[in-house]
């Protein structure tokens, strides 16, 4: 009800404003303005203009955060709101400071990438109570916020399913699989392993011969994969949790000249150098892409919705899962992956 009244007021005011403009204009105008004036357009633009959006990824130094920002900036320029970027550079404490400062400067929306479920929870609570809307991207928070992005569990399931298809029953392959996890305590890793093991539990023919954390480190992933290959020359699949790390696993397989026998599946934001190029050169056999272009589009949509509706702090926090695509060497097209130019 409150919102209705507010919208009505804004609508009336802007109508009045437009009317007053048009009532002055006709004197100078040669031709008459024809047709019906859409009363919702002006309020739409009005609700965007001069707004402040905070953006706190976990780091500005990798493809996902860069892609999201590039997408967001296009719309910001178009609609005339400002994006304030803060870069914690993988440091939670710096992220907390950045969030703290941003909340103090009272923007309308903060788009953030949680380092984990916990770290920003109390800040989100404080900010939400102060009337700021939070859009979490790719990693959820223990405190409810609007969510766009990966469903990691589904991601894990998709990767596992791909391996099951390649190495499972009736494929004639060994069914031996290595899992290369990220930092064990991170949500992305924890949810993915859940999805992977869920699928594998239904397929007893799949044998997990190695399940280790490479700490998001490509070198470590390479080392693990090499050793596993050595121990199990009949290895069939490697599941990786993030392209930045899996390149190490893929290199180990390539180095052993086994890319035809061992299926390496990775996942990531679908950046060309990290995804399509690696599929083409055989580093990966499949790549689960949660396309950053789509995610940026979703972020923009949610921003437009929230700015117009301005929901109350206790409003329902909806979730927009990203629809991932399993890319392989055979199904990639020129547009399957993105580059920074995709946002120009």
């Amino acid at each position, binding site marked *: 009800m409150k919102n209705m009244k507010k919208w009505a007021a804004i609508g009336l005011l802007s109508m009045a404003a437009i009317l007053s403009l048009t009532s002055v204009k006709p004197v100078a105008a040669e031709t008459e303005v024809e047709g019906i004036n859409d009363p919702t357009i002006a309020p739409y633009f009005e609700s965007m203009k001069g707004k402040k959006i905070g953006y706190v990824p976990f780091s500005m130094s990798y493809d996902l955060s860069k892609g999201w920002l590039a997408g967001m900036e296009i719309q910001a320029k178009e609609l005339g709101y400002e994006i304030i970027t803060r*870069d914690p550079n993988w440091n939670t404490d710096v992220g907390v400071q950045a969030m703290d400062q941003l909340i103090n400067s009272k923007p309308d929306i903060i788009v953030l990438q949680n380092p984990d479920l916990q770290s920003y929870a109390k800040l989100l609570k404080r900010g939400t109570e102060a009337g700021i809307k939070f859009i979490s991207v790719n990693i959820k928070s223990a405190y409810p916020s609007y969510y766009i992005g990966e469903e990691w569990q589904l991601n894990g399931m998709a990767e596992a399913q791909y391996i099951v298809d390649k190495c499972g029953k009736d494929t004639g392959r060994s069914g031996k699989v290595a899992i290369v996890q990220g930092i064990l305590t991170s949500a992305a890793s924890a949810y993915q392993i859940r999805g992977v093991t869920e699928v594998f539990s239904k397929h007893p023919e799949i044998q997990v011969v190695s399940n280790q954390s490479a700490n998001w480190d490509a070198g470590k992933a390479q080392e693990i994969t090499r050793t596993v290959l050595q121990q199990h020359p009949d290895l069939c699949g490697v599941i990786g949790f993030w392209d930045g790390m899996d390149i190490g696993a893929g290199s180990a397989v390539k180095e052993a000249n086994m890319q035809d026998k061992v299926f390496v599946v990775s996942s990531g934001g679908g950046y060309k150098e990290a995804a399509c190029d690696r599929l083409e050169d055989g580093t990966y056999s499949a790549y689960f892409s949660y396309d950053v272009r789509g995610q940026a589009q979703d972020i923009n949509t949610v921003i437009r919705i929230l700015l117009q509706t301005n929901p109350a702090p206790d409003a329902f926090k909806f979730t927009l899962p990203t629809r991932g695509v399993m890319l392989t060497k055979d199904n990639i097209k020129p547009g399957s992956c993105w580059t920074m130019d995709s946002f120009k």
Partner: protein
Amino acid sequence: MTSMDQAETLATRPAAAKRPTARYPFEGLVKLRARLVPSHILGEIMSKQWIDSAVPATFMVLVIGLFLIVAPGFFTGANISDGGRQLGEFGLVALGMMVVIMGGGIDLSVGSIFALGNFTALALTNLFDWPVAAVLPCVVLICAFAGLINGVLIGYFRLRAFLTTLVSLITIRALVDVLLLEFAVDISAGFYDSAIWDFAGAGDVLGLPTSFVVLVVVAIAIHLFLSRTRLGWHVMAVGGSRRSAHNVGISVRRTVCGTYVLSGALAGLAAFLYAARLGNGGSYPGAGMEIFALTAVIVGGTSLGGGRGSVAKALMGSIIVLMINLGVVQMGLQSGAGQLVLGLILLLAIAIDVRFIRNREKILSRLYMSPTYFSLPEAPDAEQPASSYALNDQLGDVSLIGLGKLDGAEDVIFDAQDNLYCGDRLGNIVRFDGPDYQEGKVFAHIGGHPLGLAFDRAGVLYVCVGGMGLYRVHPDGRAEKATDQTNRSAFSIIDDSRMRLADDLDIAPDGRVFFSEATTRYDMETWPADALESRGSGRIVCYDPAKNTTRTILRKLVFPNGVCVEPGGQSLLFAESWACRVSRYWFAGPKEGQVERVIENLPGYPDNVNRASDGNYWMALMGMRSPALDLALRMPDFRRRMALEVAPDEWLYPNINAGCIVKFTADGKVLETLWDRHAENHPMITSMREHKGALYLGGILNNRIGKHVLKDADPNWTAGASYWGQR
């Protein structure tokens, strides 16, 4: 200075005092500048202990100023409050690191211990629902225990601090990761409702964030611990020199161990506050904190390797580091900027630490010396036979006492039983039993370098001890301090309340002790430098044993030296060495408080003044003036350059190798002069005491006491009787 006119009329000049006629260009301007510009202040400021803190303080102001300009909006209320909370946590960690570094170690594990504390706090609250009153001590104890492991390994088993705490960093972090893997989900699911918990994380005390208040309290406690307690001194001593600390009996191992326990406990306290503020059960808290804490401590000016540091420095360093961290985030700079800036600042701070602090004494000794303009009239010529200073060889037949057994008997004195006393460089009062004075025995040991001596009415020996103050030795040989401090001057930068160089003394009939302090700017070892300055930095101090008070009565004297109370009991004579003059100060009677000149323009530097049997005064000239130095005294810039560019051994010093004894009347007429022309027996004289027809000579650079028989003196006269009557 008062009654100069009277002094003019009273003083009978021994020779026509000619002002130097040949002036160099702009000498007047130089004189004016020397009078107006207090150039000695810079050196005195540099000599203060707090100058160490001035560098980080300036830096802190600069950083704050910088962010005021480049990041407006940074200092808004909410940001300051949040910054205060973070400072509270970070400052505690930095304080722990500071104590460890001061003890000569380093603690790289603070970040991991912090993570462990954070996990413990969250697990105990969210998971086990303990009361806060139990959580806090438990967290601190667990972290202190982690510190104890470090401490035992480094302190007791003598492992290397850097590597050992590095291992702790890795293993404790791994432990926290394992624990998080197990409990992170449950922790995030739990909900802990406690007013005290919320207060610790988000509360205010008198408008100040809780953690900031905690920091202030802890900082004060640690400051008191380090500066006022035995254990704190042990930490400093161990850091300063482990070997010396061990050799003086400090338990080095326990002390070192203790610093790590303290560091762990403080990291735990910080983690508790952090947990209460954020409830962050993620895996990253405290990552890289060791580098930040280390940077804060070093930037604050605490020396690596130990022994130097303070709470204030650690706090300033913390503020600087935190400000830069927050400021870079606030400015939204691309990542890397923070590390770059902090890295550069760390480099700069260590470079300053190494370059400046290590050479500080050198810089200070060059900067401290601040010569001023000082002009003396042309010296009387002792070569002229008609002069009252004319050369002779009266001291050529001096007989020697204690040759080779004494070292630096500056003054000599007799008690009522004719025993001879003198001081020496080892801090002893040596007694030669009369009447033959063959055997010298240590009568009392005081320390320092005993200089001037005087007996009071009761036969208690008062001693001016260079480097220590005014002491007295009872007839049974028991030494005690009479006084070593006086009232501090209002505008003096150096602390002049302590005695640095008490020189000579005398005792008035009412028992008050008047003594000179030659200079307040230099010490026993460096006093010749005061001669190059020729700045009035000495004083005369009065100690009243009846009231046990000490007051400075005359200031700005140019190396006041000999003091002699006149028989009238209302005035005293005092000699100012570098000013080559003798003055009279009235401490009682109608002229109380007045000063008048008695002799000006002596040919040498006067030292002790004592009574003679015929009602006149003896005065030692410890060395003779030279025209070159007299000229140099009129050129302050020349002397400053000399001090800066020439090694101290080569400086143009006053000659104090050959002097003489002068006898003068109460109104300043010089009657005779005694020389050791061949400079064999007793050329270096700083004091003389007439006793039963003979003159006993002391010399601060001599290994002997001289005895010169006076031909026409009263053979029964003693100074003791002259002061206190026959007993």
